[in-house]
Structures are given as C-alpha cells and as structure tokens.
C-alpha cells in the first residue's frame, strides 16, 4: 500500500520490520548499527528493517496506539524507562511478550522496568547510571581531592562544596531545570535509597522516610547555596562550558556533552553520587534515564516473529554490537556479558579515569525500584509544591500533605 510504514509483505515475500526511535544522535544510530550487523549475518532472511526517527515521541506513540490500528503500528519501539510501565499497563494487548529474553543477562534494576504483571515485554538497552561530574582542577585548587568525593554522604558533600563555593565564587551543583520543577535530582536521590514515589503495588508513598529525606537533602543543598537550578538544559550547559558551574549529577549520557568542549580535557572528574545518610540501605549508585526496546503486536505474524528474533539476536546475545555502540555513541548498555569486552576497561583520555568500568560497576549496584505508572502525574504535582518547600514557605509535613491530596485529584480513581 502506498508508502505505508507498517509491516507489510510485498509479493517477493520480504517482510518489513519498522523500528521507531526518538533520538537522532543516540537511539537512531544505535538501531541502525544493530540492523546493519543483523543484516550482515542474515543475508536471506527475507526481512527488511526500517529505522524511523520520530519527534515528540511519546505523543506520537500514544496517538498511534490509541487509534488502535494494529496494522499501522511499528514493530519495534524504544521507550524511556520512566514511561515503560505506563505504556505497558495502558496498552497491554498491543505489546508482545518476549519470554525469549534472559533478563539475568542485564543489570538487575532493569527487570522491574521491562516486566509487567509477571511477564517480560522488553529488552533492556541503555542505562542512565549516574555519576557526579565535577571540575577536578578547581575542586583541587580548594583542597578537594578525588578520593574525598567518592562514597560520601550528601552532608559531607555539602561541606566540601561550601568550601569550593566560597573560594571560587562559582555555582557548584547545576540542574537542568528550576529547583522544584526538576524531578531529576529527586529521582536520582530517591532511587539511590531503593525507594520510589510508589510502593510496589502502586500506592503513593511520599510519606516515607526515603522521600522526606530526599527532599530534605535538596533543601539542605539549597540552603547551603551549593545547588543552582537553571531555567533549561541549555542555560546549564552554557554555565558548564563557561566554567560558571562546577558540578553535575546526571546519568552516564551526560559525559559526551562535557567532552564536546575539547578545551576542557583533563579538567573534569567523575565520582560516585553522594548517598543519603538517614535512610537504611541507601547506596552511592543511582540512575537517571535509560531506555528499553519493545516489540509490538501488529497482527502480522511473520513480521512480529522477525522483530522478536531480531531483538533476541542482537540485544540478548551480541557483545560485538554492544562494543560498537559503546565506541560510536558512548552507549552505556546494561548487557552484562558485554562488560567483558576490552572497551569497557580502557582509560578515557579526556577524563583520565576508567569511566566505563566505573559505570559498569555502579550499574549493577543501582537499587531496583518500580517506577509505576503515574510518575509524570505526580511530578507535575511536585511543580506547584516543592518550590515552596525549598524556599521555606511551607513545612515538610504540609508539603507532603498537599502533594498527597493534589495527586489524588490528579489521578482520579478511574
């Protein structure tokens, strides 16, 4: 049919498998690499792969799924981990289970993300394992060494940061959106405690110690003046490039950004993310972002089968592929067997550390949490409440109360 992107069989018997990806600089080239390598090994499979870049990805995917025309679905989609449970629960019947995948091959925290109601739907792909990126040179100037920053608590970090701030007059920790608006810090700190906004059964859990300690930590950072919320990612990056901002806590995917300014070679260091002292089981490893791959049920058996086979072959069994994407796109993947590759052990010339190994190690320590399906709704509720708490306008308890009641109306029991 006329240019239809969906899986369709032409007369010659070839089947088209459509793959959707969101990021033209990351997921898309990854996918293309996978397709290329797969095709090289399966010359006469009769399957043609098409990788399509989609903007406003979630909107688009939801429209397509909601329209419910299975024949128009793509065969494989990437979904950001935070959105995965929402999509799986909303459109369960349109997702193909993927029991072929051996989840033990992947970092443990990914399991909760790609399974729903006990069934495996997705293949884990990259990780947003976090790190503390900091200006080695300037921190050192004010007496803070690399080893001082590893495996510390937030309170310890604040002390060190205050020292650097006082000396340099620059901002320390920069976030990509305003404090109170930006869920990134909360997500990272909270997950490092092994907790999430919701309990395993999906109940709101913001009255927990973990959550309270999380936002208390951010308030402390704010009170100490060592955290700065920028209006958007660009402004923060600008501050980073200009040397006005000296530290960032972000997923592994932030490293290429830092490295894009060649003049900064050797000036940045990577350390573990501080941990929350007041919560039992809190660790120095956490996560921000990452995505996984899913096969959709398009009603075309041949294409659906081909899609699953492709996922299994490339993503759960091909270490060479992972080595290549690590090299090409700096993709920090969660496939454990691939970590044996030498690429994971090399010293990064820019940072002067074995960064990938650091990521690999920490990735396995990330506590597994269940993101649930209403994270986005809750995070919009944060926006109108947390700012007031950080600035001291509302108390901790009343803030929590407000969040709870606002959430309730937002996620009406339907």
């Amino acid at each position, binding site marked *: 049919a006329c240019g239809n992107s969906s899986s369709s069989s032409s007369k010659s018997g070839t089947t088209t498998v459509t793959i959707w990806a969101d990021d033209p600089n990351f997921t898309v080239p990854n996918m293309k690499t996978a397709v290329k390598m797969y095709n090289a090994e399966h010359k006469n499979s009769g399957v043609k792969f098409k990788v399509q870049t989609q903007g406003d990805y979630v909107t688009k995917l939801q429209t397509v799924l909601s329209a419910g025309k299975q024949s128009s679905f793509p065969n494989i989609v990437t979904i950001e981990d935070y959105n995965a449970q929402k999509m799986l629960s909303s459109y369960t019947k349109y997702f193909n289970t993927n029991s072929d995948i051996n989840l033990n091959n992947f970092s443990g925290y990914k399991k909760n993300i790609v399974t729903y109601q006990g069934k495996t739907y997705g293949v884990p792909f990259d990780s947003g394992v976090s790190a503390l990126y900091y200006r080695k040179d300037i921190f050192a100037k004010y007496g803070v060494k690399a080893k001082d920053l590893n495996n510390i608590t937030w309170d310890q970090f604040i002390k060190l940061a205050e020292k650097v701030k006082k000396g340099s007059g620059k901002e320390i920790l920069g976030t990509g959106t305003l404090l109170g*608006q930006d869920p990134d810090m909360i997500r990272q700190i909270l997950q490092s405690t092994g907790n999430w906004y919701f309990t395993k059964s999906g109940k709101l859990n913001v009255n927990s110690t973990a959550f309270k300690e999380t936002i208390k930590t951010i308030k402390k950072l704010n009170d100490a003046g060592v955290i700065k919320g920028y209006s*958007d990612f660009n402004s923060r990056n600008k501050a980073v490039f200009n040397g006005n901002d000296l530290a960032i806590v972000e997923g592994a995917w932030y490293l290429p950004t830092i490295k894009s300014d060649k003049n900064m070679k050797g000036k940045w260091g990577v350390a573990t993310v501080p941990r929350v002292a007041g919560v039992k089981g809190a660790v120095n490893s956490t996560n921000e972002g990452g995505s996984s791959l899913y096969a959709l049920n398009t009603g075309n058996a041949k294409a659906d089968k081909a899609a699953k086979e492709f996922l299994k072959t490339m993503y759960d069994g091909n270490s060479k592929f992972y080595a290549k994407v690590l090299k090409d796109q700096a993709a920090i993947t969660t496939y454990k067997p691939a970590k044996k590759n030498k690429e994971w052990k090399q010293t990064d010339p820019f940072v002067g550390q074995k960064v990938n190994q650091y990521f690999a190690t920490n990735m396995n320590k990330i506590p597994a949490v269940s993101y649930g399906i209403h994270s986005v709704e809750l995070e919009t509720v944060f*926006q109108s409440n947390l700012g007031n708490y950080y600035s001291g306008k509302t108390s901790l308890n009343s803030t929590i109360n407000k969040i709870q009641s*606002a959430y309730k109306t937002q996620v009406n029991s339907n």
Partner: protein
Amino acid sequence: MNGVNERTNRIGWWFIGLSIIGFVVFMLYPILNSVKLVFSSISGDSSTFVGFGNFVRLFHDNVFWSSLGNSFLFLIVEVPIMLIFAIVLAVVLNSKKLKLRGFWRLLIFLPCVTSLVSYSVLFKMLFSSDGLINTFLMNTLHVISAPIPWLTDPVMAKVVIILALLWRWTGYNMIFFLAGLQNVSEEIYEAAEIDGASKVQQFLHITLPALRPIILFTAVQSTISTLQLFDEPMNITAGGPNNSSMTIAMYIYNVSFKFVPNFGYAASLSYVVMFIILILSLIQMKVAKNDD
C-alpha cells in the same frame, strides 16, 4: 442582497458540495467520534462508561482550574494590549504622508511568517537568564543590576509568554485593521478637522468606532486562539515554573499524552473550553451590537 431565482439557487449546493464532504469526513465524523469519548473514561486501550463522571472530576480538578485561570489571564492581559498596539500601528502605517509605508508594513508583519516552533526556540534563547535580553538590559542599558529571572519567576514567565505572543501576533492583527481603515473615507477626517477635533479626538471619535466590526472580529479570533494557546508556553516555559504558565490546552495535552492517556477526560475538557469560547464570542458579539 439580490434575490436569485430558485433554479440557480439550487446550483449553489454544487459549489458547497466539496466542502460539505470535507466537513463531514474530516470534522463532523471525528467530532461525533470524540463526543462519544466525553462519557467514558479511557485508560489506554480500555474504556468504561462514566456518564457525567468526567465533568464531576473536572469540577474538582485544581490543575484544570488553575490552568484555565492562566489561560484567562493571558486572554485578559495580552489580547487588549495586542489589539491596541495593532490599531495604533495600523493608524500610523496608514497615514498617507508616511514615507516607505510598504516597507514598514512588511517589517511589522514579518514575525507572522515564522513558524511557531522556531519562534519559540528563539524566544527561549533570548530570555534565558544570561540571554541576550538580560545582557542588553544589564550591560548595555545598565537599567538592572542583576539578571531578571525571565523564565524562572512565575510572574516573569507569564510576561515572557505575553511578550512572545505580542511579538508574533500584533502584526497579524494589524493587517486586519489596516484593511479596515481603507474603508474609512478621508473626508470624514477632514470634516472632523473642520469641526475642530484634534488628532487624538479624531482617533477616539472616528477611527475607533469605524474599526469596531474589525475589533470584534479580531477579538473573537484572538479569544479562540488564546484559549487554545499551546505552542508558546510548551516550548518557551514548558508551563513552568510551578505550572504558572500552564494553559488549558497544555493541560489537555498532558492528560492525553503525558499522563496515563485518558482521552475521555481530555475530550470533556476540550468541550468545556469550546463551550467557554462560544459563550465569550457570543458575549463579545452582543456587546458590539448593543453599543450600536
């Protein structure tokens, strides 16, 4: 209006035919389809009938009310300023003695040619805390000592959105007024001149009343588009900070696409907005008529 005989009148249906087909297929059918949604709650692929449940929910939904409030604020503040600016510009650019009239008109209209996406990107960059505007105010004009938190202050964020809207749409509306002014005869101004009216008096007593139908037209049009305002807050402030620039259209978008998708609720919200627009438009028309 001249009468037309019956035979020819019937031929008229052929002219309308194509558009009626288009309307039925691309408007009416989707509308009816969405009306169905109003009475259901939809979570992804499952749908349950809830009667008027969506409207009950809407009634208790604070975010809905506050985003509606924001939309109204934009409407009340931005639309009048924009229309006044547009009228003043139109009057000035209509003056016969003005040199390079066509050139100025072109410049003022220019913002309309930019796509919403690109102009939003531009504004976001201009107004970031160390963006050009702040640099200019601070280092060139020295009128402020610290950067204005354009995008990070709840009030300023609204100001930026309003400025963006003004920039993008004033010229667009100006064209309508300019066109309207072509219908005001020069002689009326001369008569007023002889009656002793000053330029300001002429503007108030002659120009404004003459432009009234166009003011109505632009006001209705602006009401419709302001209450459906989406791209600017989405791209410039993302509705923030603290939801302070979240509009009703953005909220509908969130309900449909960001949250667990509930198209039933989203459709209900949409119809409420449509209803509000309808009421406002009717009021505007009524006001315009009553003054007659």
